[in-house]
């Protein structure tokens, strides 16, 4: 399976869905999870008062802790997002002082963590089918499913080609300046594309042969359970409270 470098850090796509199964979060309806997390993230993005921002960060971290998504996995992903956060925080710090810098860091981190928990705690197919509820157009949802499927296939092909290459002694490709290495990498990339394209045709037919038209349907019935409603209610309350405090509606 492909070992993907996410901003320089390693994650395997299968691993992602594994975490989803490990956490209780995986049992919730995807639409509820998306709705709740989105509410929280939107609310947090609106916060500028330091105490509120820190409150949001604490909520986010406790969400992560409660979700039981593996800590190390989350840290890895968070580190991947860090560069942008750091640049922003440091520059704000330079111009507007320590607390403003803290605000920036806390706010962005809180949002990123919440989003990471959502991403890690939900199986990818469920996320896609959750999107269907948002009336995503057929073209987009078909492309989403197919592209994700082919990412996995491409990963396989890439892994195989890399092994084949190494079996023939190729060790280059570390730097942009290694021109022969670069050509080999371009060829590998091109070859992976072309081979994957062949499998893509078959894969699409195989999907159509089993009745696939444009999107995925989840195995379990899509009825909201008490747990889903509780999840959404909690995030709705928390989000509205934070925003109200920010806007000064509540002293």
């Amino acid at each position: 399976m492909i070992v993907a470098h996410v901003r320089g850090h390693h994650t395997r796509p299968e691993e992602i869905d594994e975490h989803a199964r490990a956490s209780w979060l995986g049992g919730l309806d995807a639409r509820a999870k998306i709705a709740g997390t989105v509410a929280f993230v939107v609310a947090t993005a609106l916060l500028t008062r330091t105490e509120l921002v820190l409150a949001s960060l604490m909520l986010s971290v406790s969400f992560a802790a409660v979700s039981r998504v593996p800590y190390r996995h989350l840290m890895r992903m968070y580190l991947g997002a860090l560069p942008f956060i750091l640049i922003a925080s440091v520059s704000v710090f330079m111009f507007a002082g320590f607390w403003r810098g803290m605000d920036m860091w806390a706010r962005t981190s809180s949002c990123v963590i919440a989003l990471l928990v959502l991403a890690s705690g939900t199986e990818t197919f469920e996320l896609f089918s959750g999107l269907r509820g948002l009336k995503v157009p057929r073209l987009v949802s078909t492309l989403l499913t197919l592209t994700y499927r082919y990412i996995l296939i491409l990963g396989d092909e890439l892994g195989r080609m890399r092994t084949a290459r190494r079996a023939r002694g190729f060790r280059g490709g570390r730097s942009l300046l290694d021109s022969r290495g670069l050509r080999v990498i371009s060829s590998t990339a091109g070859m992976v594309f072309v081979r994957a394209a062949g499998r893509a045709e078959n894969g699409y037919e195989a999907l159509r042969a089993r009745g696939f038209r444009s999107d995925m349907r989840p195995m379990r019935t899509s009825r909201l359970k008490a747990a889903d409603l509780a999840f959404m209610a909690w995030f709705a309350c928390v989000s509205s409270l934070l925003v109200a405090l920010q806007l000064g509606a509540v002293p």
Partner: protein
Amino acid sequence: MHIPDGLMDPMVAGLGWVEFAAVAAVAIYLSGKKVRDKDLPRIAVLCAGIFVAQMLNFPVGGGTTGHLIGGALLAIMVGPVVAIVGMTVILLIQALMFGDGGLTAFGLNAVNMAVIAPLMGWGVYSMLKPLLSRGEAPSGKAFTPGEAFAIGAGAWASVFVAACACAAELAVSHAISDGAYGIAATVSVPAMLGYHAVIGIGEAIITVGVAAYVLTVSPGMFEAGAARPRASPGLRGVLSSRVAQATVAIIIAFALALPLYFIYSSEGADGLEKTMEDAAVSEGEPLLTSPFSYGETYFAALFAGMLGFVAVALAGLGLMKALRAGKTAE
């Protein structure tokens, strides 16, 4: 260039969503008419490929690494409109699978990487190609050096202009929010533009390399490959309409920056003055102080300059085309 949530001023983020929704709606509508069911696997494979490619690092010296965006590559292979949809799908998967790029910031990320990048990439490529490449490709190569340059230039422009947009968004966020959001222009502009000017070179090299390989091995994947014009007089009509489309694409890419400017000018003047005071107080390189002497006209100059340059360049190219067409007609 994936911006997380909480970084941009909500108004800028909101604008990003509005612009993205508008462009995406049009792109989806047009793609729906053009794309047939049997094209979907091919397009999805290309998207998957770009997704995977985006995740690979290439070192650019000094210990930093860069990433491919792929907007230009996709646009050259499937056309700009489908590329917009494809890049959007890629960004969606990244945001939902990896939390890479925020939700509130998705609109802005999409505008930068899924709209501006492919439009600029395809636009510059389509404009330069007929000018630079004459005749057949030398045997054994996928395209003439001129065409390779056009592809590379398109790729570089896609990255650079997207970075400009991102820098502008950050700067405006900073200015209108009194420093609570965004990154000050004096940091964001040089940082983003400088870094991405270099990254763009890597993108150009890789884009040309992959395009060459795919075109050689399997031209069917290339929309451009299928429609590659020979240098023949009858096709001048086709070429010039391509140029017109390219012009439109580039103008749209830049036009997306206009609303930003309006937001800034209506809200931001105070913010910028405050930033000026802060800047004077904190120690910084001389670089920090000099642009501020233009005061609030700084941004105006920036935007006007961009638009003006583009307008002049386009007019000039259009003129050259017309002249050349006139000459060969004699």
